[in-house]
């Protein structure tokens, strides 16, 4: 699958997918989208990179780092990053739930407020976005972990 056509397409398409994914995530509270959809789309973008190049490309090609070879897949640096991402996501989700308790509300209670920003005008800030961000991280981290570990087989 690592043909020139595939790689060229991936180079063009991946940034577009990522922008769409982020916008879907951000608009999710009021328009179609949300953490899960944005997350799965992000996974698709990274998956495309993986299929077109390889697991190390993110490190060697994008971040321009040295890559250690011959490590076990579970301890691979990229996989570790994915694993940390879903752990972080779970922590965010639980923390956003506990925040409700701290403020005297039930577990996972959400709230929202409107703030006035220059250029953007009236913008809604919902605490649900924090929760949704956690979901986003879990989906991206979890699915990419599965993707890369199974893919290495």
């Amino acid at each position, binding site marked *: 699958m690592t043909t020139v056509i595939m790689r060229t397409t991936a180079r063009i398409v991946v940034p577009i997918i990522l922008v769409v994914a982020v916008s879907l995530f951000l608009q999710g509270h009021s328009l179609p989208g949300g953490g899960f*959809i944005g997350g*799965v789309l992000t996974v698709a973008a990274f998956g495309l990179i993986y299929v077109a190049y390889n697991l190390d490309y993110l490190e060697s090609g994008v971040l321009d780092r040295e890559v250690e070879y011959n490590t076990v897949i579970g301890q691979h640096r990229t996989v570790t990053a994915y*694993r940390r991402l879903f752990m972080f996501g779970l922590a965010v989700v639980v923390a956003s739930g506990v925040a409700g308790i701290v403020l005297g509300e039930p577990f996972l209670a959400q709230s929202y407020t409107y703030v006035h920003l220059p250029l953007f005008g009236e913008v809604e800030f919902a605490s649900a976005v924090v929760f949704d961000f956690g979901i986003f991280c879990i*989906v991206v981290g979890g699915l990419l*972990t599965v993707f890369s570990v199974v893919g290495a087989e």
Partner: protein
Amino acid sequence: MAQFSALAAAIALPFLGAALAPLLYRLLGDRVGLAGAAVATASFALLLTQLGADGTVSVPWIPSMGVAVRLTVDGLSLLFALLASGIGVLIFAYASEYMHGKPDLGRFYSALLAFMGSIVGLALAADLVVLFVFWELTSVCSFVLIGYYTADEESRYSARMAMLITVGGGLCLLVAILLLGVGADAAGLARFDLSAILANREAVAEALRARGLFVPTLVLVVVAAGAKSAQVPLYFWLPGAMVAPTPVSAFLHSATMVKVGVYALGRLRPLLQGPEWTAVVATLGLVTMTVGAMLAVISTDIKELLAYSTASHLGLLVAAFGFDSHYGAEAGAFHLFNHALFKAALFLVAGIIAHEAGTRMIEDLGGLRADLPITAAITFLAALSMAGIPPFSGFYSKEIMFEAAWDAAQAGGGLAWLYPATAVFASIFTVLYSLRFLWLFFGDRPSGLPAVHRPPVGLLAPPAVLAVGVLIVSLFPGLAVDRILDDAAAVTAVSSVEIHAGLPTYLSGPVVMSAITITVGVAAFPFYDRIQTGLNRIRAATTVLHPTTVYDALLAAADRGSAVAGRGVHNGLIRTYVWWVLSAACVLTLAGFATTTTGLPAPAIAETPAALVLVLAVAVVAAVAVTTAESHVTGVLTLGILGFMVAIFYILASGADLALTQLVVETLLLLIFLLVIEELPAFYGEIDWPRVSRDAALSVAVGTTAFVSVLYAARDAAGPPTETATYFTDNAIPEGGGANIVNVILTDFRAFDTLGESIVIVLAALSVLVLLTMRDRGETR
């Protein structure tokens, strides 16, 4: 009035100690037992402050289900809790000497303290759910303590047996509690409020009878109590439990835990009393009393003898509570107290003998009087009390039990005369084995017995304290009766109660019963060996009927059955797993619909838009094409068509979020396929017709289930939106602050569900990681 804080502290302190025990063990070493004794003393003192108080206190726990932490103080609960914590003090003191140098003492004391907390909690509980929780906790602690020697096969076997029997009984109790809840609800009471149920016992009993639930409740309670209190035929776990260290046997398996069943019977006695109650409970108790006493006579090990004797005495207690009259309540409460004192003392004596003489076999022991004079004196008091010889404490309570049996026989006539006859028959064996135990200290010293050392004070003091207790109750029974026993008996009785403890002054039926028991018992003692041989012969002839044989056979059958079922259900092929999961889901769903609904709603075919029909038709064509595809590539691509058609269907049905999700997931699937395409074989193999037809049947079943579910779940297109839908549309913006209802439901209204789903993703990722990396490390081999 009872104080909640004092009661809660008396329960919580042991649990706190249990949590800290491993840490304390590191700091204090072997002496952590004394810390346990301090905790038990504190609990005991807290409970003592409540002596004379009466009433129920509660704090809400699960208000929506009417469950509260209700604690009650009355004679019975205090008696039981004081016994548990008071004997607990002695046991901890004894254990710190006895368990000296043994491994894993942190775990041991932790479990022992947790057990004590559970038993105090159980005694004070006035809420059925709380009672059940503590009931099961005692079973779990008992399991841990019996299995203390984890490397020992017999230990593990016995621990598992005790767990299966007592927890199995606990399940019966759970069902009985639910039935009682139904009765309480019908009588207009809080569902699980035991004190209210007992206060309105006539209304609750009437409600249960009206629904035909009275006898099932009674039977379930008796099974639960019988399993816990080692009644026939579920007594066999108790002798097995004797593999535990002796302090555990003395505490759990004689003084407290095994009495939990008896305690429950005493508590529920006023509610469930009636002819059925006497027939079931008194008979069960007397049979256990007889079987236990006979097995005790043929025991070869001193702890085994005490274990069977415990079962026999538990039978006596159960039988006493089984009799309707006030004598029954008096005998039950009084003997509960006496038995805890003398039996705990005897177990501790058995521990001393085993510790100092190095053997527990009865035939290797004898003439210990000279080596262990103080122990001999303790045994003298306790064993004669156990035998029921006047003027020792056991005699008073047993005499009242005889009165109860006599009373029941006079009232019932005919077959009811079997009650006193059986009681006397069993008591003769009781006298026999009590004298046999005492004889360890008299008679000739066997030549093989090595030098016996004097026990240290730490081992001697606890049983001595108990023996002094026996002596005080023997000399001045009124002291204990006035303080607590009258109150305790009154709780378990419906009529007025007044315990008369003393030597008989005139001749009556029960006095004759006692006289026969003691005379025959003492006269038969010289022929102990011959009686033993006779009983052994009976036992050998009935091996097939032994509960242990049945238990082992059932266990072996369960093992074989699960091996067979296991091979069928999970054989390592994903195909098999999917088959079982899906077919089970289909069967359950369809059965649910079949039992709860009538008639199938007709699908609204005429109103379906043409575009929708077209999209679905393409989807169906794609689905058929998938099954006939010749290679993976065509199969997956046609599957993609099907997925995108479903997405379009969602768009047409104005489910934008669903459509987005469907599209994104479909894309991801294609991507995954690209990843693995090079690894797959180019063509499918030969068709295996039986497998194909099985898969086809499953597919049809899944399709049918989905179809039927949609028909039932879809709202009536012509009708108004459902209540749930209206709630979400009305509240999404004001409550959640978002116009996308699906997202607001996911992140706000139903955030808990989303949290659970995200945890599923995390678990899936973790299991993939662990499974694959563990294989790399070679840990699976």
